[in-house]
C-alpha cells in the first residue's frame, strides 16, 4: 500500500486587512497597510493510504476547505510539505488535476444547459479517457444507480439531489486516484442522502479510489468512513478510526420533549429519576442526553409518559459540534 496523500506540518496563513469601523474607517482602509495574519490551517500532518475513505470533520471555518484546496493545488501552503499521488499539487496543478476528482456540494462542474450525457462526453475528451474505459465506467454506473432517466436531462432541469448524484458520477468518471467530496449531502432529503452514501461506498469499493469526505453531518461519516479526522480552528483535534471514537462516545442521542406545566421543575424530578443522564431545561423544552448503551430512548420516553403529558418530542443525533466540545472537555486519543 502506498501513501496517496502525505502532509507534513502543513500551515497556511492568510493576510487579512484590519478593517476599521464607520465611513471614516472605510476611507482610511483604502490606504491601510495594517494587515493581520490569520492562521487557517495550523501544523497539520496526515498520511492517507490508497483506497481509504476518510471523513474530514470540523465546524464552519475550521479550515477544512483550505486543507482541501491545498491538496488539490489551488492554494499553496505557507510552510510544510504536501504530496498527492506523488505530485506536489500546487506545482503541477494541471497534472494533479488528471489524478483527482472533485465535488463541491453547492456548485456543479457540469454543463448547465446540456444533458448529462453530453457533460460526460466532454469530460471524456478533456480527461482523454479511452473508449473502453469510458464504456466500462458507464456500465458500472448503470449497475449502481438508475442513471438512464438522468442521462438525457439537462442539468438545469435537475433537482438538487439528481445534480449532486450527477456531479459525483462525473467526478469519478476518469477513474481518479483520489476524489474530494466537499459537503456532498448538504441540503438533501433523507432518501437521497442514503442513495448518495450507497453510491460513494460502492465506487470506493469497486475502484479502490481514495475518498476524502468533508462534512459536518455525522451521519455521512458514520455510514461511510472507517477513519475520521477532526479539525477545529485550524488545529488537528483527532485522527483515528471511527470505532475508537464511537467507543469513547457510546451512543448518545439527545431527547427533547415539551410537556404541559412548568418544565423547569419537571426537569428536576426527571433528573432524579434518570440520574445517569444529564437533564437540562429551558422555557421551550426539556433535553435529556440519553446513552443508548444504558437504556433505550423509547424506554426513557415511556417512563416519562407515565407521569407527564408529552405534547411534542424531538430526537437529535449527536452533532459534530457536540463531539468537538466533548473532545475539548475530556480529551481523546
Amino acid at each position, binding site marked *: 500500500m502506498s501513501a496517496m496523500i502525505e502532509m507534513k506540518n502543513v500551515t497556511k496563513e492568510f493576510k487579512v486587512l484590519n478593517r476599521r469601523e464607520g465611513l471614516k474607517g472605510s476611507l482610511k482602509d483604502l490606504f491601510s497597510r495594517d494587515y493581520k495574519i490569520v492562521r487557517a490551517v495550523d501544523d497539520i500532518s496526515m498520511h492517507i493510504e490508497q483506497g481509504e475513505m476518510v471523513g474530514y470533520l470540523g465546524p464552519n471555518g475550521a479550515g477544512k476547505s483550505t486543507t482541501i484546496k491545498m491538496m488539490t493545488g489551488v492554494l*499553496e501552503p505557507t510552510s510544510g510539505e504536501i504530496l498527492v499521488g506523488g505530485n506536489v499539487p500546487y506545482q503541477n496543478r494541471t497534472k494533479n488535476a488528471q489524478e483527482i476528482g472533485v465535488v463541491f456540494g453547492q456548485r456543479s462542474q457540469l454543463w448547465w444547459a446540456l444533458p448529462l450525457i*453530453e457533460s460526460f462526453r466532454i469530460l471524456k475528451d*478533456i480527461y482523454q479517457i479511452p473508449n473502453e474505459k469510458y464504456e466500462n465506467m458507464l456500465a458500472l454506473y448503470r449497475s449502481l444507480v438508475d442513471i438512464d432517466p438522468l442521462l438525457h436531462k439537462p442539468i438545469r432541469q435537475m433537482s438538487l439531489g439528481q445534480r449532486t448524484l450527477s456531479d459525483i458520477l462525473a467526478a469519478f468518471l476518469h477513474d481518479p486516484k483520489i476524489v474530494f467530496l466537499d459537503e456532498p449531502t448538504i441540503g438533501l432529503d433523507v432518501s437521497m442522502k442514503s442513495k448518495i452514501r450507497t453510491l460513494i461506498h460502492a465506487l470506493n469499493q469497486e475502484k479502490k479510489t481514495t475518498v476524502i469526505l468533508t462534512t459536518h453531518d455525522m451521519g455521512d461519516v458514520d455510514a461511510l468512513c472507517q477513519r475520521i479526522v477532526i479539525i477545529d480552528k485550524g488545529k488537528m483535534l483527532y485522527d483515528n478510526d471511527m470505532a475508537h471514537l464511537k467507543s469513547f462516545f457510546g451512543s448518545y442521542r439527545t431527547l427533547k420533549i415539551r410537556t404541559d406545566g412548568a418544565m423547569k421543575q419537571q426537569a428536576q424530578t426527571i433528573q432524579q429519576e434518570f440520574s445517569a443522564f444529564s437533564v437540562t431545561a429551558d422555557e421551550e423544552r426539556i433535553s435529556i442526553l440519553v446513552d443508548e448503551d444504558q437504556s433505550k430512548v423509547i424506554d426513557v420516553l415511556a417512563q416519562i409518559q407515565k407521569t407527564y403529558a408529552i405534547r411534542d418530542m424531538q430526537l437529535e443525533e449527536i452533532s459534530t459540534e457536540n463531539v468537538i466540545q466533548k473532545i475539548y472537555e475530556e480529551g481523546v486519543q
Partner: protein
Amino acid sequence: MSLKKYLTLTRAGIMESLQFRLATAVMVIGNLLYLIIVYYLWKAIYASAGTDVVNGMTFTDTLIYLVLATALFNFMEMYTVWEMGRNIQTGKIVLDLLKPMEYQRYLFWSFSGTFITQFFFTFLPTFLVVAFVTQGTIPLGLNLLYFMISVVMAIVINYSMDFLVGTICLYTESIWGINIMKQVVVLLLSGATIPIAFFPEPLKTVMFYLPFQSIYHAPLTILLSRASDSQQLLTTLGTQLFWCVVMMLLSKLFWKLSLRQITVNGG
C-alpha cells in the same frame, strides 16, 4: 488527438448557445435598433457637413463600416470579463482550475463554440444583407480570405485583452466598473463606434501605436479596401500578428503572476 480535447469544448459551446434561441432573437432586435440610431445620426452628420465626402468617406462608406463593425462586435464580444468576474466571485473558478487544462485555454475554447454560432447567426447574415443592398460597394475577392485571417487574430487579441482585464478581478473582486471602462476604451479606440478616419491627426497617430485598432479597424479596412495594396495589407496583418503575440504573452504572464499571488495569499 490533443486537439480533440479542445474541439470538444467548441462543440459544447455550439450546443449550449443553440439552447438559448430567445436570447439570440432579442439580440438581433437590439442590434437593429442600434443600427437605426446609427443610420439617422450619421445622416444628420453628413447633412450638416454639407459635402458628400467627409474625411475621405462617403455616407455609404461610413454606414457600411459601422454596420459591419457592429456585426463584428456582436460576434467577437464574448463577455469574457463578466464570465471571469462571476466565476471568481462565486468561487466556481476553483472547479475550472481543477480541469487538466490551462485556465486561459480552457476558457477560450469554451467560448469558441459561441464564436462559430455567432459568426453564422449574426455576422454572416449582416454581411450578406449589406453586400446585397449596396451591390458592388464591398469588393468580393481575395480580401475575404485576408479578412478571415485578420478576424482570427482580432479574436485572439480581443480575448487576451479581456482575459487581462478579467484577471484584475482576482484582486478587486468586483467587475462592473472595470468592465465598463474596458468596453468604452476598446470600442472608442478600436474604431468600432466612430471610424478612425474621423479622429484628429494626433489622436490617429496615438491609436496606430495602440493594440485596439487591430481588433476592429484592421479587419474592416482589409474587408472594405478596394485597392489591393499588398504593402499596406502586410503592414496591417503584421501589426496584428505583433499585437497577437504581445497580448497573449502579456495576459499569460499577468495571469500566472496573479494566480501565484492568489494561491499564496488566498482569495
